[in-house]
């Protein structure tokens, strides 16, 4: 058989990039690739622990209410945990979505619009989520006391 027969094509066939971004940032895609592989294993620990604590311990999903969240965020550990999970998951997921947009949105205007919307969504959610974690008030003054965590009694 000759090297030109189909069985002998080495490796996957890689076509030319379908869209040319017009921007040249040497190494940017390599950092993207590295970031996906560095954030992945950290996210495994963060998210599987999140799921285990919230769904498997205690009464699982049935236990989740305002008082449960207040109880968790009373500890800086869980505040930092959720903050790190928020930032890493949104950046990892956002970067993944960016790759998908580049793969599927070929028309230039669509590609641009989707990247814009993605950027706004990722930044907006990270800012909102961070504000929620760091400005959280476990004992709002006008709230029904029966919905609050028990430690609020000492605060009043």
């Amino acid at each position, binding site marked *: 058989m000759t090297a030109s027969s189909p069985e002998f094509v080495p490796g996957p066939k890689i076509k030319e990039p379908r869209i040319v971004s017009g921007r040249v940032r040497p190494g940017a895609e390599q950092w993207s690739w590295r970031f996906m592989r560095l954030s992945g294993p950290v996210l495994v620990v963060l*998210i599987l622990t999140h799921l285990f604590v919230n769904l498997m311990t205690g*009464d699982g999903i049935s236990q989740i209410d305002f008082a449960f*969240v207040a109880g968790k965020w009373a500890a800086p550990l869980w505040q930092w945990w959720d903050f790190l999970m928020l930032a890493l*998951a949104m950046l990892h*997921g956002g970067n993944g979505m960016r790759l998908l947009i580049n793969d599927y949105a070929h028309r230039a205007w669509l590609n641009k619009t989707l990247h814009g919307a993605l950027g706004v969504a990722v930044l907006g959610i990270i800012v909102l989520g961070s504000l929620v974690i760091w400005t959280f008030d476990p004992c709002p003054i006008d709230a029904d006391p029966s919905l609050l965590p028990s430690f609020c009694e000492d605060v009043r």
Partner: protein
Amino acid sequence: MWMWVVHRVTGVAIFFFLLIHVLDTALVRVSPEAYNEVIGSYKTPLYGLVEAGLVAAILLHAFNGLRIIAVDHSTWALRHQKQLVWAVWILFAILMVGFLPRHLMHVFGGA
């Protein structure tokens, strides 16, 4: 090839879930009533099944992601591709068997 499709689909699904998830968690800044009301609807059977699907998607994406990383970094893993795909599915099955009964009990058992 199939794992590539699984990885893409689960990644996108988790991304959109996370957008909604941060928004619903933000309700703790509105009022305890607002938060409890929305989270309350997540305890219904329909959402209970959606949550099971979400956990399945996370586990698959997570273990397959680790497999991708391993294959990129070690020729041993590259040579044992097939076995590693099996490992992903077996680990996935074991964790789901541990998770599902307990979760479904919480959702359907009224616990």
